[in-house]
């Protein structure tokens, strides 16, 4: 692995983790979408760099899908949905920003400790890449847990998925990466359509315990 190849890959993957943190503290939906689009751009750059370094042309397809779909189409669609459904623009957090960021730091530390120790036999690039990818995955999950709003849950899921695509692109010579990214895009598209069609704006949580009982089918 040449020095420059490694440094650029490292920089881009580290950028993804940084943007995951930025996603955690956004408190406006539109700003959240913009930051997510930025993450998708960095992801596609990162995948394209892997394609160049590994000399794997099919990864350019994955990079293109990531860019077109997640940096352009999905953010635009979500912008329109927010406008049309009149969803509250503020993001409601279950947990405050401070504890969330601390939890995020702990998760990154965890994934670095786990991956750096484990993947010592794999080559250095793959090892660091996996550690960053796991961080992005865990931060995405954290975001899904701490947000109430359906749109920000979708954004959390997509950022989780960015981590997976990063890991798949970093695993040198892995087959089916393009197919997997297409399968994921279908999944995400359906979530977004679902949010739009069924006007899911909240996570079905309500302080009214009676309504909750009705949902559970346990009311008599």
């Amino acid at each position: 692995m040449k020095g420059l190849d490694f440094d650029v890959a490292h920089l881009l993957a580290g950028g993804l983790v940084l943007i995951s943190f930025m996603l955690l503290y956004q408190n406006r939906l539109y700003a959240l979408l913009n930051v997510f689009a930025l993450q998708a751009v960095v992801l596609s750059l990162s995948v394209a760099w892997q394609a160049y370094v590994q000399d794997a042309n099919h990864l350019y397809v994955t990079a293109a899908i990531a860019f077109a779909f997640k940096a352009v189409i999905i953010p635009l669609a979500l912008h329109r949905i927010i406008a049309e459904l009149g969803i509250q623009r503020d993001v409601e957090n279950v947990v405050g920003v401070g504890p969330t960021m601390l939890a995020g730091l702990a998760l990154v530390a965890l994934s670095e400790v786990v991956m750096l120790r484990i993947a010592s036999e794999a080559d250095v690039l793959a090892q660091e890449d996996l550690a960053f990818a796991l961080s992005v995955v865990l931060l995405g999950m954290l975001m899904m847990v701490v947000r109430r709003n359906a749109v920000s849950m979708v954004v959390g899921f997509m950022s989780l998925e960015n981590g997976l695509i990063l890991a798949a692109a970093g695993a040198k010579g892995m087959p089916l990466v393009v197919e997997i990214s297409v399968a994921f895009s279908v999944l995400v598209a359906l979530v977004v359509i679902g949010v739009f069609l069924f006007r899911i704006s909240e996570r079905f949580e309500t302080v009214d315990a009676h309504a909750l009982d009705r949902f559970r089918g346990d009311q008599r």
Partner: protein
Amino acid sequence: MTAGIGAAIVILALPAATAALLSVLPSYRLSAAINVASAFVTLLAAVSLLAAAPQPNAYILVDDLNVVFIVLNTFVGFTASVFSATYIAHEIESGRLTPTHLRFYHAMYQFLLLSMNLALIANNIGLMWVAIELATLTTVLMVGLYRTQEAIEAAWKYFILGSVGIALALFGTILVYMAARPVVGEGVQGMLWTSLIAHVPAFDPALLNLAFVFLLLGYGTKVGLAPLHAWLPDAHAEGPTPISAVLSGLLLNVALYAVLRFKLLLDANAFALAPGPLMATLGLISVVFAAFMLYRRRDVKRMFAYSSIEHMGVIVFAFGIGGPLANFAALLHMAMHSLTKSAIFYTVGQVAQVKGTQQIADIRGLTVTHPLLGWSLVFGVFAIVGLPPMGVFMSEFLIVSSTYERAPWLALLLGFGLLVALGALVLRLQGMAFGAPIGSRAPAKASALPIVAHFALVLIAGVYLPPPIVTWFQHVAQLLR
């Protein structure tokens, strides 16, 4: 050999072609008939795999382990399509669904069969992942079919939890590839099950361990193991009943199959952690948790969904305990649970259709108003709680006794969970089956044939298992160690 390849192609291509056809066919009566016919031919093709399995190639793999799953899958897929054909027409009459919904439903049904068969037969762990993802998507769409607030909530919950689950599973799959790459080289060989299992002793054990944790949590979400089960009761309760039957009887098994495949990988690597204790713990937690949750259920489909969590727990526990006897019992239990639980859902679906409610308290005296349905429900509950002489009794007995040999305390806990569940189900059954009848006395519309057929098989298996089946299961159990 060519016959085997042909059969393997049929079980994938036929559902695909039928799904395409059904998505454009306007008449729902014709669609239902085609759905049944196609599922039947798929079943025949699957059975023929028993006689002549094809050689594994880069795409498909039929071995003694997955052929059991494939035959069970296509069989229940067929009977569920028969049930659905008679059941779903009534949903149109009662105005809960429109013909457009049904066109979508039938096309999706075949697509679901396709993705499950693909997940079972694929030799490539990446392809298996894609297939399970597609199966998840399809069932999400089916669960939300009624478009009520509850159905959409259930679908959304299933979607979010299922997506996170399969995302974790993908991370695990990537880690398996990373572990394989230094040994088997780059490219598609690193994802082929046949080459993985051949070279796994040389893989990096630490990577394999981490991969298995992700895979167990990821696919375990789809199996419905206890801390990750939250989607399961909602999805079962709010979707159309044939889909509840397919979810419980089949989709959970497909996810379980994925877990088993990776368990085999870890077993074959001497330095990796033993996957058994992890699986046994999760399984046991599921059993005990679900058994207690059964008591507070007021919705009948939701109650049987918790019973599915309990039984998947039993199966995962038994595979985790391992050894020829426990593995044999786990396989048998899986087959018996699929048959019994789907038949119970067929029964419950008809009951809910006739009575117009799924609330347990509004269903009373079934044996008086609808003797066939009522006694089917009684038989089904007796079978699923594991009373003799039904098949579930035999498998549970084997599981408890084989566990007792190895770890008496665990056997005690398991037996306690099973008894608690028995109490809950029998308690609820009393009110539904006996007592003064209330509600509609209109005759049931859907066919009782699938119910009777399943229960007959469960009864026969409990009384007498034909020696060829026993040898087959024993052989697979040896394979699993």
